[in-house]
């Protein structure tokens, strides 16, 4: 074996996939050739280190849920039979604490400020017995807390990491009476986010605002976006659930649009059936 040939087989040798005879020949060559020995040492170090890279966590449950939703929609399209909404569950459960250090710091700072304000606003038990806490101050603390949660949520939704943006979208559900900027950020995410998971989460988060005209307009625009059939299916479901008055006309157009994915056409037909019943 020539040096070049030997070196090209190092990876196979390390993987244990060489024939015993070839492997022995390679070992003999390496033992007698200083240059190949040095080259082998380098390749072996990298090969071993690659094996030490931790195996990434596999989000099987979440993927299975999305897969089931897709399959249910496909069955509905094939059978022209409504698929159950339970099959379409698309939940994701963010953990409480964000991963981005900047957001962690912002959250920690906010909690500290809330603590200080709460400490000032709420007198000690002893004092409390003499003078009840003015409800105005408690209301101020609550408003402060809501504003901070809102600020954090909006900040999370701007992060580069899709996981953080997902977390931001989920946090909107915890804000009482969110301001217009939260609804606008959710609509912006629904229409423009680069990650379909985040967009799917946004359509779920927008359900509580379904009576708003801007949300209805946004969902109408989202259903026309052909880049993600999954999102289109989710928006159709949204419009069915919220009984959007414009849905029937829109669904008729979608069901007949040959350029659309089969899944979407089937779901639009299903939507029409649902709204007619």
């Amino acid at each position, binding site marked *: 074996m020539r040096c070049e040939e030997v*070196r*090209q*087989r*190092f*990876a*196979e040798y390390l*993987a244990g*996939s060489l024939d015993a005879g070839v492997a022995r020949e390679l070992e003999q060559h390496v033992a007698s050739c200083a240059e190949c020995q*040095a*080259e*082998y*040492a*380098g*390749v072996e*170090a*990298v*090969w*071993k*280190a*690659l*094996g*030490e*890279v*931790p*195996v*990434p*966590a*596999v*989000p*099987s449950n*979440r*993927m*299975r849920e*999305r*897969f*089931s939703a*897709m*399959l249910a929609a*496909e*069955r509905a399209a*094939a059978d022209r039979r409504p698929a159950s909404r339970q099959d379409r569950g698309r939940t994701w459960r963010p953990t409480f604490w964000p991963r981005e250090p900047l957001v962690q710091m912002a959250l920690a700072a906010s909690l500290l400020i809330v603590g200080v304000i709460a400490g000032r606003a709420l007198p000690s038990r002893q004092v409390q017995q003499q003078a009840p806490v003015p409800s105005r101050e408690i209301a101020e603390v609550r408003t402060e807390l809501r504003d901070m949660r809102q600020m954090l949520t909006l900040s999370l939704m701007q992060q580069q*990491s*899709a*996981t953080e943006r*997902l977390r931001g979208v989920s946090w909107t559900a915890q804000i009482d009476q969110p301001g217009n900027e939260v609804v606008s950020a959710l609509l912006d995410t629904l229409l423009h986010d*680069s*990650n*379909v*998971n985040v967009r799917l989460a946004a359509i779920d988060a927008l359900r509580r605002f379904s009576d708003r005209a801007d949300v209805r307009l946004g969902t109408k625009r989202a259903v026309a976006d052909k*880049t993600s*059939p*999954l999102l289109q299916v989710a928006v159709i479901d949204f419009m069915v659930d919220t009984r959007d008055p414009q849905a029937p006309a829109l669904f008729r157009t979608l069901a007949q649009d040959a350029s659309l*994915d*089969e*899944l979407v056409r089937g779901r639009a037909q299903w939507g029409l059936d649902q709204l007619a019943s």
Partner: protein
Amino acid sequence: MDAVQGGQLEALGELFERHHRQVFLFLRRTTGDAAIAEDLVQEVFVRILKYRHTYDAGSRFETWLFRIARNARADHFRKQGPSPAPVDAALEVAAPDPGPEKQLERRIDAQQLDRALQQLAEEPRDLLVLARYHGQPYERIAETLGIEVGAVKTRVHRAMKQLRAAFFNLEDAPCAVKK
């Protein structure tokens, strides 16, 4: 897969259970992004369903599956714009290589190595991931990538050298290599 082709859609569930993990890991390791990999797994199974009639029953399913995964990934990055510039093959020569003996004295930081892997061009990255993590023999890698077996041998070796060069190029980062 025969059942799926025959219209039994529920059989796709079995394929999903059997293969989603390896498809996810391949995409996660070659994109470096779990969220993108998750989206792409969904896309892969949508494509299997959509293009089920194009599958040749005589060929190996895994090969077809990995081809779909590579195409889905390529389409994703085409839509999203170019990914970060891959490491130039010239880096192999230009990177400061401390020499194999010294390398042996050092402990290679696995996560830094994973970052270096993301800097390789698409083909060498796929070659290394398929060979190292999926234990695929060169014949199967050749089928998936649509190249000759001889080319796989040469290119895996070259990819190992590029990875080593990319790794030592990242050495400036704190704690990259611990002596």
